[in-house]
């Protein structure tokens, strides 16, 4: 009996969310006094084993197959199902990422088991009691999860990745999953690189966001200018994309991008929860709003009460002044 974690990687590049998942899994394993195992898909991932050991993994199951050189969700899922049938874990988990949720849903369908996506807490037993994310984080659900093997994914940033205090020996056991042609009918067949030079919204240190209060598509010019002066990116609320003022790629929130800047400057944003869950990773929020009672002001660290059409250009002017020294 053990806890089994599926490690996510892209051509051998480890996903940080998998380290959070292992931290989560290790705590569950400790409660059950059970070991923590991990599954790595593809020979290309073998060098990651040492990193996993630091997070308390005692055994790595390495799936070897000459066609496992790139991501193929069904082939990954079949590899997991095979190892589950062999080692009979108590629970299997992955990170609640695009790929993690995808592979685990395939595992669940293949094994005919329930699955709980994006858990923030878990209490073992039969059934498991889990707390999981609904509405992209606006709401939580406590649920019972049944199944001979408990399948779940761990909500991103539910726990911080922490190495284990003490680690033992690491065993690596390789196996070759029996994969059929069909397991590769869905696979990555190409990639399109993002345009170089532009600061990506998800990684920007400063995000200047605009809501309906910006008033028009033209109104965003002032926000663009401020973002450029700060080396940041422009974001917006869902209302703005629905109005066609900005592309969806700039949308911050439940159905858009999750941002994590040093500061989020929210201009004319009301602060609806669907938007704010996307800004939860922001270290600080500065609200610029005419309404001191707007929900965004209560959620901000700093606020300027005023018309953004005056405040934003004044900020740009002040920054230029300071830069010119």
């Amino acid at each position, binding site marked *: 009996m053990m806890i089994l974690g599926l490690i996510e990687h892209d051509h051998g590049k480890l996903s940080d969310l998998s380290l959070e998942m292992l931290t989560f899994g290790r705590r569950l394993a400790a409660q059950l006094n059970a070991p923590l195992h991990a599954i790595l898909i593809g020979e290309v991932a073998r060098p990651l084993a040492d990193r996993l050991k630091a997070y308390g993994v005692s055994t790595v199951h390495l799936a070897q197959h000459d066609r496992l050189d790139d991501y193929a969700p069904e082939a990954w899922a079949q590899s997991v199902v095979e190892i589950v049938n062999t080692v009979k874990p108590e629970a299997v988990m992955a990170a609640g990422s695009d790929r993690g949720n995808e592979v685990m849903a395939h595992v669940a369908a293949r094994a005919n088991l329930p699955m709980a996506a*994006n858990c923030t807490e878990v209490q073992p037993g039969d059934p498991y009691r889990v707390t999981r994310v609904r509405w992209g984080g606006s709401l939580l659900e406590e649920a019972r999860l049944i199944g001979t093997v408990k399948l779940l994914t761990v909500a991103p940033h539910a726990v911080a990745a922490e190495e284990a205090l003490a680690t033992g020996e690491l065993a690596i056991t390789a196996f070759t999953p029996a994969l059929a042609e069909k397991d590769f009918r869905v696979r990555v067949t*190409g990639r*399109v690189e993002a345009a170089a030079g532009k600061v990506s919204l998800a990684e920007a240190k400063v995000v200047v966001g605009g809501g309906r209060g910006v008033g028009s598509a033209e109104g965003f010019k002032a926000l663009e200018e401020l973002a450029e002066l700060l080396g940041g990116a422009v974001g917006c609320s869902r209302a703005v994309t629905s109005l066609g003022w900005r592309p969806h790629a700039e949308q911050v929130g439940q159905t858009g991008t999750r941002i994590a800047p040093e500061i989020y400057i929210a201009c004319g944003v009301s602060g609806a929860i669907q938007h704010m869950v996307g800004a939860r990773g922001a270290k600080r929020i500065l609200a610029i709003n005419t309404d001191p009672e707007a929900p965004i002001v209560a959620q901000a*660290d700093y606020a*300027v009460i005023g018309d953004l059409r005056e405040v934003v250009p*004044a*900020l740009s002017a002040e920054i230029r002044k300071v830069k010119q020294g």
Partner: protein
Amino acid sequence: MNVLVCVKRVPATGGKITLTADEQEIDTHFLGFTISPHEECAVEEALRLVEALPGGGSTAVLTLGPAAAEEQLRDALAMGIEHAILLETDGREWDPTATANAMVEVIRARRAAGRDFDLLLFGNEAADTGGYQVGIRVAHALDLPCVTGVKELEIRNGMAMAKREAAGGREIFEVTLPAVITIKEGINLPRYPSMPGRLKAKKKVIEQTKPQWNNGGLEKVRLKLPKEQEHQVEIFGKGPEAAPKVVELLQRLGLV
């Protein structure tokens, strides 16, 4: 090409979510309902795909939900979808496994009657429950390939070319139809239904069945609101005069 879009009725939540006293639902006394956002884009995508194909095709929308979910089916019909199917529940929540099983049954029955679908569209995840699995479970049961989280879709010569976001860009998947594709918001901007569209939709007959509720193994116990972090907001002032204070902060953070 025959396209089926599976949608979910969800509350149109505003700035603040409140729960019912029994903590089982969102209090919807003052809320409207809508098609879950990813699925609204799936409806739009179905319409665009069929409009763009030289041979045309037919479109249908399917939902599992209470009788009131007819409203969302009529919204999809008003946008231009031709047929609608309601799997009526008694208002209880169905977990992803149970939902997928009921949908598979309907699709299998159609298949047997010679009315199969070439393309099944889902949302990547339902806005409310966020289960991330109904599309995949349906694909598995019907032995179809499934691409999830798609933000760009093209149908050519019986193939679906799908792109989705990945670190540093987009990854491409190519699958043969029939296939299941789960859509993410941003793939398109859904149209507003026209007035004639709304009137036409009102008169359409909705196919209805009442599947038996079953326990799929993930049972809701209660809902709760996440803890709000205590916040002290520092007001820098009013209007443009506050600019120097803001820039001082930005300098302190090393951003200017």
